[in-house]
């Protein structure tokens, strides 16, 4: 047992750290630090910088233009990104669709779409959930009917994150009503500029239009956009979800959040002393930090197993639950740390182009919005209840 990185791993970490120091624009890291909403152009800029270095696709094999990193290297990279307050890599094309196309897509699909993902020609969004199909994803009702060389798609997707920026959506659609629900699902790539596609924003409780509804009204989709075989989409969808769950623990985010919390608690004063010296508040911070220390080792235990060629299975459900609960508690404590200045609803200070002086200290303005927004962590990507069911079935065999 050795808890430290090998020399090679340390060298890699230093290389990543130096790259961040040199190439991450302050205009972007400032926004991340202040919890401001990043624009489409911000994301594209950061992707382009990483792509120029060849580091955009951390989980793709070299053959497809990726880095070929193992799980520990990916972990180090993610960790350094968050430490540097870099924008997260938008996952839909890179972390989700890419691996599916690499494993199940046709040669034509791979040759066409993968470079476009790297170059930022396409912005993908994820069309899984529907109003009636959330946790029970296999009950999707959006239909795809074959008509000559096309499919005709009708139905609705919802909760589509950043769909407003996207020109492409990958969807689970019902292509057959025979057999079990899982057996009639296909995985289809749809051009969002095609006639019959409409998109409507959904404003979340923090005031941000982060997700969308996407409607399909007799949309013609070339049959060439089917991934793999018709009615086999459930297999691909599940494969994608295992990739969605990489870095699920969010250790880097939690560490950055904890540092920020402590910084605020040192600056805030309660009864004439720094808040961090208040034993009751400090105890709450300590509890979450102790949890985080253990969880980051649990995370490394799971990650290093995967590096040796074993896929993290149901263990990732454990990481998801513990990781999200810790991050949410850090958000709650941060909201508490800023005191009465959590009350102003400062959405204008969170968006691009606003030079409005913040109300209260600068560090206060995103606290409530982030607390509210990160309630999503335990809902999406398979809710924490769904993860508990996976653990009790797959690990405990109950």
């Amino acid at each position, binding site marked *: 047992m050795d808890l430290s990185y090998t020399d090679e791993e340390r060298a890699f970490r230093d290389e990543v750290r130096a790259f961040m120091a040199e190439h991450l624009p302050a205009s972007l890291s400032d926004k991340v630090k202040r919890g401001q909403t990043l624009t489409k152009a911000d994301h594209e800029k950061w992707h382009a910088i990483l792509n120029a270095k060849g580091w955009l696709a951390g989980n793709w094999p070299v053959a497809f233009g990726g880095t070929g990193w193992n799980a520990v290297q990916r972990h180090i990279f993610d960790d350094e990104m968050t430490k540097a307050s870099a924008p997260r890599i938008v996952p839909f094309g890179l972390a989700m669709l890419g691996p599916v196309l690499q494993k199940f897509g046709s040669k034509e699909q791979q040759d066409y779409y993968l470079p476009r993902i790297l170059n930022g020609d396409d912005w993908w969004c994820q069309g899984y959930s529907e109003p009636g199909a959330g946790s029970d994803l296999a009950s999707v009702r959006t239909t795809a009917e074959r008509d000559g060389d096309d499919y005709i798609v009708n139905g609705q997707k919802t909760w589509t994150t950043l769909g407003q920026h996207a020109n492409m959506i990958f969807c689970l659609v019902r292509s057959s009503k025979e057999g079990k629900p899982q057996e009639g699902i296909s995985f289809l790539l749809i051009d969002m500029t095609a006639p019959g596609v409409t998109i409507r924003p959904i404003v979340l409780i923090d005031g941000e239009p982060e997700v969308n509804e996407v409607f399909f009204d007799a949309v013609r989709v070339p049959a060439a956009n089917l991934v793999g075989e018709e009615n086999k989409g459930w297999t691909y969808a599940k494969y994608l979800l295992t990739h969605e769950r990489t870095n699920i623990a969010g250790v880097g985010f939690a560490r950055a959040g904890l540092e920020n919390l402590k910084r605020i608690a040192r600056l805030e004063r309660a009864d004439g002393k720094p808040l961090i010296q208040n034993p009751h508040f400090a105890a709450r911070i300590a509890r979450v930090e102790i949890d985080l220390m253990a969880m980051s080792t649990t995370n490394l235990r799971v990650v290093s197993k995967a590096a040796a060629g074993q896929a993290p299975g149901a263990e990732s459900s454990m990481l998801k639950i513990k990781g999200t609960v810790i991050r949410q508690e850090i958000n709650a404590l941060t909201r508490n740390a800023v005191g009465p200045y959590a009350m*102003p609803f400062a959405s204008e200070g969170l968006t691009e182009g606003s030079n409005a002086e913040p109300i209260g200290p600068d560090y206060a303005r995103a606290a409530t919005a982030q607390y509210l927004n990160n309630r999503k962590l335990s*809902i999406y990507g398979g809710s924490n209840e769904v993860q508990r069911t996976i653990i009790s079935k797959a690990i405990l065999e109950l």
Partner: protein
Amino acid sequence: MNFDLTDERQMLQDGLRRYLGDAYTPASVSAIDAAERGFSPAIWQGLAEMGVIGALFGEGDGGFGGAGFDIALVFEEMGRIGAVDPLLDTAILGGGLLAALGTDAQVSSVRDVIDGTMHLALAHGEPTSRYDLTRVTTTAQKTPTGYRLDGRKAVVVNAPAADMIIVSARTNGNMAEANGISLFLLPADTPGLTLRSYPMAGGGQAAEIVLDGVEIGNAARLGPENAALGALETATARAILAISAEALGLMEAIRALTTDYLKTRKQFGKPIGQFQALQHRMADMLIEIEQARSAVINLAGHIDAPAALRDTHVSATKNLIGIVAKQVVEESIQMHGGIGMTQEYALGHLAKRLTMVDHRFGDTTHHLERFITLAVA
């Protein structure tokens, strides 16, 4: 022992619930969102006409209530509908301080408050005072005719709508001394007083206030010089009762909404309320909300007790309410899934308003510490 409402209070509760149910329509709510004051003047007038504001004042002050259980009843109903009307700021804090400390001329404004024609705000908290009532750095310097005020006040709720603002300032003593705090009653348009207004996460409006050489006469002082802290503590105790009862109403509303949702939302071919994992958590939520109700009753019953006993209940209740509020907010959003994250669905507003309760008049940690001092150590 009798935990039933008196007939009068039962009538008030029924009437208020009916009125608020009719008044808070989707149309009136979106009108409020667009309005600058952060609430509906029409609904406010209706509350005054029903006698809801009067129920918060004793007979000696022109009202017909003012007891702890009157406050609890009114604010629980306001919470149930997620009302954003500034009853707490205009009536409990502003009106309460006027009634307690005012000269005859100043006290006459209480009638206007009860009639619904006057709005008030208390400008006491400062950018670095957090929840400490004694921490006042705003100064009131004596002038030949009165005082000159200089300083900053933070998150002054309802200031944008207030006709008169009660400002606390130091006439003596150091920054955190109990003695030396005085109150002043100022028209909101007094020269030298500027507001920066903004909406709040749970609804309503507040402002940052700058006092820059504000000249006022002696008659503007509210209550005795240097000795306002006791009255501020009493007003804050009553405000904590009000906001705790409001929180209880919000919790009840959220529980009802969530229970309904669990009965109607289907996944895996059945209502999600049939999953035991969720049933048990709803049961836990119910237990904690009943704890919150008892804590509010405890405080309502002791609001006029001697300060030490009163404040033990103040801190016990506010601590417990803060903890239960967090649980109710987080669990209800979680059990709703994606829909619980949206601005449009009714839960969003209720959950935000309930979350903000922990940011006024001291949070769970502040009151835990105060309770230790008062009752444990």
